[in-house]
Structure formats: C-alpha cells, structure tokens
C-alpha cells in the first residue's frame, strides 16, 4: 500500500464496473463525480476479504461528497459516501 492518491478537494469519479463479487461501492453513485472531503486511513478491501483471499489489499478510504442534483437531477442536499481508493479515479477537466 502506497501513499494516499487523493487529497481533500480533489474531484474523483467512481467506477462504473459492477464486479462479480461483494463490493462496498453503492450503485447510486457509480460513474458519478464527487469531491474528496478527507482521507480516513487505510483499511482492508472488502472485495478481497469477502472472498477470504489470503492477501487482502489494504487501501486508503476516502469520504467523498456528491451533490444531490448530480445523483437525482434535483435536490439541494449532499450525500457523503466512504469509498476505497480502487473505487475511484481522478475526474477529468471536463467533469465538474
């Protein structure tokens, strides 16, 4: 496990892939762009632990904030979700 890839304020996009096993990336935020609120330390990846793999990956988890308007097309609230690093990629310049 290396350094945390993202810092507070970074824009990130969640993966759209639906893996063929347990994961903690909820469907309602897949493919969405959010902003990193803060890193939360490193934790074993549930996708690996649920399959009882001998070597579970350990990754930084981030609180990532999404705007209701992006998720549902309406609403003024925010939803913050805790996500493992491999669920995220940097959002491009066009992703705002």
């Amino acid at each position, binding site marked *: 496990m290396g350094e945390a890839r993202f810092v507070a304020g970074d824009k990130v996009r969640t993966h759209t892939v639906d893996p063929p096993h347990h*994961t903690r990336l*909820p469907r309602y935020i897949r493919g969405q762009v959010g902003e990193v609120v803060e890193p939360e330390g490193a934790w074993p990846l549930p996708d690996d632990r649920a399959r009882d793999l001998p070597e579970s990956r350990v990754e930084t988890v981030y609180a990532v904030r999404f705007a209701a308007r992006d*998720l549902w097309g309406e609403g003024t609230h925010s939803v913050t979700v805790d996500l493992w690093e491999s669920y995220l990629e940097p959002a491009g310049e066009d992703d705002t």
Partner: protein
Amino acid sequence: MSRVHDVGGQTGFGPVSPDLDDNQPFHADWEARVFALNTALRRRGVFNLDEMRDAIERIPPEQYLAASYYERWLLAVEMLLREKGLLADG
C-alpha cells in the same frame, strides 16, 4: 455486485415508520441468540464481517425482501456454515 441489498435511492418502499420502534434491542430471544452466535463465530475466525455481509447479499431477492433483519442474519450464518462444511444438511 449489484444485488438486492443495494437500495440507496430506490423508490417504492413507502414512508419510514419511526413509531414501529419500541426501544428494545431485540424483539425476541432468538434474535439475541443469532446476534451472539454471529459475534462468536466471527471471533473464532469461522468467517469475517465481509463474508457475512456477502452472504446476506446472496440471499435470494424475494427472500431478502420478505425477511426481518435478524432472519437475514440467520439465513446468512446458516449459508456460511454450510459452505464451510460446519453444518451438514438435516
């Protein structure tokens, strides 16, 4: 995997009923026993928390939706014990 448990944002489950709660930690003795069994089996390393969650998510959707909270736990614990050969059929 997108399974039945992944309900964030879904519609159709009706309003929340705050009054249904009676402030009891468990609503029957068997719920408390299932809770304790799950904790003990995890401590013994029979399965970990993520395996338990995965098992709950693998309950067939119609059964998941019909089951109470601790019924889901019971179904998942039984599923894991069977898969790990600790609970023969019968």
